[in-house]
């Protein structure tokens, strides 16, 4: 019994070391909030098109009727990281041949139209969420955010923050993994 007690401090140090090692893990972000909507159907919403943009509006039914994986990207013209991810997102959608939908979050119609005019419009449909209410339904914590949606409209994955660098790698990996389940 005595002898076991001698090893107790060592055991405690080893345990704490393990905890610290876990905390230092590469890529672990204690501030990241897991989405509450993973593996749940996309929330009910119906958004009109942005005035002055030819792309049609966006509703839950558009996702429910899909037969392939798709991406939903929450963006705004006032959001600088959105500008950074825009060309990469555009290329990803083209290369992967994956439908890309836009949720234009709390944006003025003319500003959004000018932004899309300048940077190009890769979106099949765009919903104009001026009040941000639909953003809340999606559990959006900040723009940009990108969701992967299953055929039938179930939310499979969320990447919070711009899909550049590590964010893009995570999104691509998630897409590749999901492609196996949804060929």
């Amino acid at each position: 019994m005595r002898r076991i007690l001698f090893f107790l401090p060592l055991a405690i140090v080893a345990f704490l070391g393990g905890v610290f090692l876990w905390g230092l893990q590469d890529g672990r972000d204690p501030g990241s909030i897991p989405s509450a909507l993973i593996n749940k159907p996309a929330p009910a919403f119906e958004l009109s098109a942005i005035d002055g943009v030819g792309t049609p509006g966006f509703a839950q039914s558009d996702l429910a009727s899909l037969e392939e994986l798709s991406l939903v990207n929450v963006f705004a013209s006032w959001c600088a990281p959105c500008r950074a991810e825009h060309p990469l997102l555009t290329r990803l959608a083209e290369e992967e041949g994956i439908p890309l939908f836009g949720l234009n979050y709390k944006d003025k119609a003319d500003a959004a139209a000018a932004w899309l005019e300048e940077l190009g419009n890769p979106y099949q449909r765009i919903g104009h969420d001026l009040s941000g209410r639909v953003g809340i339904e999606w559990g959006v914590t900040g723009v940009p955010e990108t969701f992967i949606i299953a055929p039938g409209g179930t939310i499979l994955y969320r990447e919070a923050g711009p899909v550049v660098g590590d964010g893009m790698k995570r999104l691509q990996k998630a897409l590749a993994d999901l492609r196996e389940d949804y060929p």
Partner: protein
Amino acid sequence: MKRLLCLLLFCATPLFAVEPDEILDDSVLEERARAISAQVRCVVCQNEPIDSSNAGVARDLRLLIRERLVAGDSDAQVYEFLVARYGEFVLFKPPFKPSTYALWIAPFAILLFGAGAVFLTLSRQKTAAAAKGLSAEEERRVKDLLSEGDK
């Protein structure tokens, strides 16, 4: 002048993020809304409740909470509504359930463990102290040694 400054200092009210246009006319509902929003974590500035956060989403959520209350939701329903969208992460007081047992029980378990360790050490010290007196054999030897000196 100094006195006036002091007076003004005491009159100063704490700064709230809640803007006048958000406040409900019904003071009972407003009171409930304030209590709820003090318990909800802002998803942008994560260590702040939405009640004192100036973030856009926090304001939207405050308005939404008031809207739900006006529509007749109970406090529990409002929390449910938020948790369904943002997860339990937004609750400053997480519910007591299997996945949070460690969170709730660990502090008390560690306290109990520490108290047990202290109790054990103390009681052991007491028995050690009690055994410190000389045994009969030792007493006899002491007597012998002392009497030797007399010779």
